[in-house]
C-alpha cells in the first residue's frame, strides 16, 4: 500500500482514514501503520471480534470422541457393508471405540470418556459432525484447514482476518500462533501471509520452556521473556535501545524537516520504531501467566497445552485478532497403531480446551470471541492393517470424508449438533460441510462476506474460499 496503487494522489494517514470506502486495501494500510480501525469495513454486523483456533494436529478420531456410532459396537469385527472405502493405507474390519460414553448438558450431547471437561461445556458448544476435506494427507489437509488450499503458498485464515479487519492493539501482532514446537512437518506455511502484505503474517511463538509432563501448574523455569525471544535479544538492554531509538528519531527528523511535504512512507517508518519498542515490553507482559490467580491456573491445569490456551485467552483479551494454539509438535493425534494413544493427548488437552470456554465466559469475552477446535481430518471407523506393533492392531487410518469440529462463542448456537456422518461414522451424509464452508462461516461471524474479501495478485483476485464456500446460517444464533 505504500506504493500508490491506482490512486492518483499520495496518501497521508488522515487521507486514508477519509477513504475507508476504498475497501479492505485501505483497511490493511491503516492496520499497518498501527491505527485501530476494527470493523469499519465489515459487510455484516460482526458477531465475533476475535478467534481462537485450537488445533488437534494429526487427526482426532470422531468415532472415539464426539460422534458415537452404535452400529460400530454392533458390527465390530465385521467388514464394512458395501465394500471398504479406500483410504491411504490398508484397512480391515469395523472397529468399535474402546472408550465409554456419557450424555452431557441440556442438549444431551454424547461425549466419550476422553473429554469429560468439554462435556461440562456441551451446552455452550456447537458440534459440526459433517466436516469433510479433500486430501487424506497431513500436509495438504492442514494447509486446506489453515489456508483454504492444499498446497503451500496461500494466505492463512488469520492473515485474511487481519487483512480484512486490522488489529485492535498496535503493540502486538494481530495474528499469533502458539505451539511448543513445530506443528507437523508443514510449519510456517500454515500461518503465512503468502502474497498479502508482510504485516499479516502470523507471529509464531514457541512456548517450549520445559518438558510437558510436569505436574506443576507453572514450571519454575518459566520466563516470558524467553518465549518472545523473537522480539528480544538479551545482549541489549531496553534502556540502551530506548536511547538508540531517541537518537534515530532525532536523526530521521533532522532529515525530514527539510521537506515541505510530509512523506507517509517515512512517517510510517518512524512510527513503526515506537511500536517495535513497545512490543518488546508489552509482549512479555501478556505472556506472563504467573500474573494469573491460582484459581485460573487450576482451571487450565498443568502442561504446555494448558499454558498455550491460557496465553491465547490473555492475548485475545489484549485485542489480538486471532490466536492459534497447536496441541503439540509433530502429528500427535495421528493414531495409526493404537487409538488408545488418544488417551494421553486428551488428558493434556481436554481440561485446557474446556478452560478456554469457561475462562472466556468469566472474563466476559465469550460472546464476541469465536472458538474453533478440530483437526485436519478424522479417522476411519475401520481398523488399520500393518501399523501396530507387538500384536497390537488397534489404530485407525486418515479419514477426509467425515469428521467433527466444534465451535463456541461468537454468537454460535451452543448445545447444537449440526450434520451427521453415516451409520459407521465414515462419510458426512447429512448437511456435509466442506472446509471452505467452515471458513465462509468464520468470516461471516467476523462480519465479512467471504466472496468480497479478495486480494488481487498475479493477475487475478484471490479469496480464502477460492470459488466455493457456503455460510452455515443454521448454527448462528
Amino acid at each position, binding site marked *: *500500500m505504500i506504493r500508490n496503487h491506482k490512486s492518483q494522489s*499520495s496518501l497521508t494517514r488522515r487521507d486514508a482514514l477519509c477513504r475507508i470506502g476504498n475497501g479492505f486495501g485501505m483497511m490493511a494500510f491503516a492496520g499497518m501503520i498501527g491505527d485501530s480501525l476494527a470493523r469499519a469495513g465489515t459487510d455484516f454486523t460482526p458477531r465475533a471480534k476475535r478467534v481462537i483456533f485450537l488445533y488437534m494436529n494429526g487427526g482426532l478420531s470422531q468415532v472415539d470422541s464426539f460422534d458415537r456410532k452404535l452400529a460400530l459396537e454392533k458390527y465390530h469385527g465385521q467388514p464394512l457393508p458395501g465394500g471398504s472405502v479406500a483410504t491411504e493405507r490398508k484397512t480391515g474390519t469395523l472397529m468399535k471405540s474402546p472408550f465409554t460414553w456419557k450424555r452431557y448438558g441440556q442438549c444431551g450431547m454424547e461425549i466419550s470418556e476422553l473429554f469429560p471437561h468439554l462435556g461440562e461445556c456441551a451446552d455452550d458448544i456447537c458440534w459440526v459432525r459433517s466436516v469433510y476435506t479433500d486430501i487424506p494427507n497431513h500436509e495438504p489437509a492442514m494447509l486446506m484447514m489453515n489456508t483454504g488450499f492444499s498446497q503451500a503458498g496461500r494466505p492463512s485464515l488469520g492473515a485474511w482476518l487481519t487483512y480484512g479487519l486490522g488489529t485492535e492493539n498496535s503493540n502486538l*501482532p494481530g495474528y499469533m500462533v502458539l505451539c511448543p514446537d513445530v506443528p507437523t512437518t508443514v510449519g510456517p506455511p500454515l500461518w503465512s501471509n503468502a*502474497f498479502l502484505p508482510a504485516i499479516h503474517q502470523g507471529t509464531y511463538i514457541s512456548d517450549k520452556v520445559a518438558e510437558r509432563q510436569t505436574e506443576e501448574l507453572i514450571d519454575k523455569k518459566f520466563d516470558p521473556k*524467553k518465549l518472545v525471544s523473537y*522480539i528480544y*535479544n538479551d545482549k541489549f538492554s531496553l534502556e540502551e535501545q530506548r536511547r538508540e531509538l531517541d537518537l534515530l528519531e532525532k*536523526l530521521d527528523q533532522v532529515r*525530514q524537516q527539510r521537506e515541505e511535504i510530509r512523506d507517509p512512507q517515512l512517517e510510517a517508518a518512524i512510527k513503526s520504531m515506537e511500536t517495535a519498542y513497545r512490543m518488546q515490553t508489552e509482549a512479555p507482559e501478556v505472556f506472563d501467566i504467573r500474573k494469573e490467580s491460582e484459581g485460573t491456573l487450576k482451571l487450565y491445569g498443568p502442561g504446555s497445552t494448558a499454558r498455550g490456551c491460557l496465553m491465547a485467552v490473555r492475548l485475545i483479551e489484549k485485542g489480538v485478532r486471532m490466536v492459534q494454539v497447536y496441541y503439540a509438535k509433530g502429528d500427535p493425534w495421528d493414531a495409526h497403531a493404537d487409538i488408545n494413544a488418544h488417551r494421553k493427548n486428551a488428558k493434556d488437552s481436554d481440561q485446557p480446551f474446556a478452560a478456554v470456554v469457561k475462562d472466556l465466559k468469566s472474563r466476559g469475552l465469550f460472546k464476541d470471541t469465536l472458538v474453533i477446535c478440530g483437526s485436519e481430518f478424522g479417522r476411519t471407523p475401520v481398523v488399520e492393517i500393518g501399523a501396530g506393533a507387538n500384536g497390537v492392531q488397534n489404530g485407525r487410518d486418515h479419514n477426509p470424508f467425515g469428521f467433527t469440529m466444534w465451535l463456541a462463542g461468537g454468537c454460535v448456537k451452543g448445545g447444537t449438533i449440526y450434520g451427521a456422518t453415516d451409520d459407521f461414522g465414515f462419510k458426512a451424509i447429512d448437511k456435509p460441510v466442506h472446509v471452505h464452508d467452515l471458513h465462509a462461516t468464520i468470516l461471516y461471524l467476523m462480519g465479512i462476506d467471504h466472496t468480497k474479501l479478495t486480494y488481487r495478485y498475479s493477475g487475478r483476485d484471490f479469496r480464502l474460499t477460492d470459488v466455493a464456500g457456503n455460510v452455515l446460517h443454521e448454527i448462528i444464533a
Partner: protein
Amino acid sequence: MRVIVNRVWRSHMGTGIVDTPSNFGVTGERPTNPELLEYLAERFVDEGMSLKKLHREIMLSAVYQLNDDDSKENYDKDPANRFYWRANRHRLDAEQIRDSILAVAGSLDRKMGGPSEPLTPDFKRRTVYGKVSRYRLDDYLQLFDFPSPNISAEKRFTTTVPLQRLFFMNSDFVQQQAEVLAQEVAAEPDNEARIRKAYRLVFAREATPEEVKLGSEYLRAEPMKEYEEQKAKPPKKDEPDADEPGDSEFTPGGMMSGIGPRVKGEEKKPMLPPTAWGRYIKVLLSSNEFLFVN
C-alpha cells in the same frame, strides 16, 4: 514490447507508465505517458531488443537522474508523481538492504556465480546467492517483502512493519556489521572525526554540524566503556544457555539469529561484543536515509 519496456521502466522508476504491469487490458490502468511508452517500445525493437541498451537508455535519461526534491507547485498538480517530476522515494528491497549493509561495512563478497547458500550472518556474498525455498521462504526475505516464490509477481510491495525495526534493533547480523564498521572508524583521532568518517562511509556525504552534535551527545551519554577499552579485551564467549529452546527444525536461525531461538547445530561463532560505537553505527544503518533511496 510495451509490456517488457514498461516492466523495465517500472523497476527503475518505482511506478510503471502503466502501473498495472500484468494487465494492459481494459481493466488495467491507462498509460500516463503513452508517447513515452511507444517511444521506448520502438527503440527497444530498433536496438535489436537488447535489454542492456534499454536499461542504459532509461538510466542515462534526465528523468532517471532527478533527485527527490519537493516542489509545492508540482506536488499540487501531480501528488503521486505519475509524470515523474521527481525521483520516487522507495525503500530498499530485501536483497538491497542486506547487500548495502555488507557493502558499507566493507564485508561484501562480490564474487559472481556459484551455488546458492542459506542466508546467515556469516554468509557474506550478495543476497541474490541466498537460498530461496518455495516451500519455506527465508524469514529475513519474507520480513522485507520478498514476493511469494510460488507464483509470478508483477511487482513487489513495500510494507513498513514493527518486526522490521526489531530486526534492526535485535539481530546479530546488523550489530555485527555495525561493529565491523565501528572498527574501521576507530582509527580517527577523535569522536567528531569518527562521526564524520562514519557518515562518509554510510551515507557517502558529510555530516551536518547538527548531526555531529547529536552523535557526540549520544556517545557521551552512553554509560558503556569507551570503544578502545573494549577493543583491548578478547571477544567475550557466549555462555551456553541450558534453557534455550533449540531443537525445532525451522525456528528462525540464519539472518534472524539474535531474534529467534538458535537452531540446533548452528555453531556459536565468536562475535564482536556490542559497543556504544557499534550501536551508534547501527542507528545510522537503521535510519530512513539509509533504507530509502532518495
